[in-house]
């Protein structure tokens, strides 16, 4: 069901944990649906110098968190903002269709953390291109 890459990031997740005094925090998901993702960012000079996560969720959710944090490390905030859920899924060598929403969650986690940082800096928040709507087959999750 899962690619080797997903299993690798599930079994050996990178960047698990919290950052002390993070510059940006993103909390997304809902325990009711079985998924919560917390993303913590360290940001210096507009560059993400460290990223960590904590996730309650399925294999795909954990692997997506791991991959997303890997992808944004070292990127500027603009570059990190453009890391789409598809990029996360592609980097994981694909996700089953019904698990795509777990990668959406990762994208949103990063976005929220970035906006949390911008807000603290007194900067205007960036707008979500596709506001939260990840689909589970025919049901769309509404929080």
């Amino acid at each position: 069901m899962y690619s080797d890459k997903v299993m690798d990031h599930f079994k050996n997740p990178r960047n698990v944990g919290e950052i002390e005094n993070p510059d940006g925090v993103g909390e997304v998901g809902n325990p009711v649906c079985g998924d919560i993702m917390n993303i913590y960012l360290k940001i210096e000079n507009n560059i993400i110098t460290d990223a960590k996560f904590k996730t309650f969720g399925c294999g795909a959710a954990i692997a997506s968190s791991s991959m997303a944090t890997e992808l944004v490390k070292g990127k500027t905030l603009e570059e990190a903002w453009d890391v789409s859920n598809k990029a996360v899924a592609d980097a994981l060598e694909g996700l089953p269709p019904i698990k795509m929403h777990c990668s959406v969650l990762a994208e949103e986690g990063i976005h929220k953390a970035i906006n949390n940082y911008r807000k603290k800096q007194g900067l205007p928040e960036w707008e979500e291109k596709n506001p939260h709507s990840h689909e589970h087959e025919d049901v769309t999750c509404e929080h």
Partner: protein
Amino acid sequence: MGEKRIIYLDHAATTPVKPSVADTMWSCMNTHFGNPSSIYRIARESRNAIETSRAQVAKAVGAEPGEIFFTSGGSESDNWAIKGVAFANRKKGNHIITSAIEHHAVLHTCQYLEKEGFTVTYLPVDHYGLIDPADLERAITDKTILISIMYANNEIGTIEPVAELGAIARKHKIPFHTDAVQAIGNVPIDVRTQNIDLLSLSAHKFYGPKGCGALYIRKGTRIDNLIHGGGQENRRRAGTENIAAIVGMGKAIGLATADIEWHNTQIRTLRDRLLNGILEKIPHARLNGHPEKRLPSNINISFEFIEGESMLLWLDDEGICASTGSACTSGSLEPSHVLLAIGLPHEVAHGSLRLTLGDANTEADVDFVLEVLPKVVSRLRAMSPLYKGEKEEKRNV
């Protein structure tokens, strides 16, 4: 990867076919291929083989052979019982009573009937998953034409007070169906003393073949056919008989019901070793289902702060086959309707694990799980945002 030792703990999902049953089926497939409806000798041999099996199934539940009808499995049996009785009795009424924790083969069939103009009452259950007979009695109206309550639950293993429920149905002259797919072989079943009018079985749950089941229909019960056509199964279930599977089912049910007491003691001992070990070693874990009125092979346990699918993946990696009540295994949003019905919060239901033991499991299997599972739970808790760590653990234990 290499061949890894497999520890199969998902016997409620399906069981391996007993080698002796598989061999019987294989030789049956190679000898008794004649269509039992035909007139020549090899066809009569097929017919005899089927009738022997029918008698074995009948004996296992205390029915007459003429009351046993072979089907393609538990789902077909449930669908047939419910739709068949509902449509045949529509002139009398349109009300059906079932429970909130039935298998989907019952629940989705009832939901379908709701679209067809029937009204369905879904009885609630208590925290153990037990149905209160008084609730059943209260739910009955003069439009009630069918009561369908499962014998034992497939997820949490709770055994319902079937004889009592059956007695209430009988008193009100309403046909009583029970889905005994999980119960057979674990509980002594007697359709006469337990007032059961219809009962569903599925062979692959007791080391028989997949794709074969049976419906017991008490003589005199009004029921429409579900599969129309040829005159097989005394004109009640069309389709060329699956002789090999039917023979395999007969053999398997004989073995499964031969010595229930002894078998249960064996498996319960092993189960309790596993259950107690888990509860001892892992904090924030709770057993779901009734502590005593439960299938001897079933453990269903919730681990707070973590999610089921990720547990399963880790266990699979160690060669352990288990299942969960988390919706994430199926990618749907709602976790198990059974766990919600017994009052578990969504996030706890998501962290549930079902381990169901079988004949081939050993103490070594149990001890291996007791070694692996605590590590898996700790590892997942360590990355869970819901888990506040050691401190909370100490406080709550």
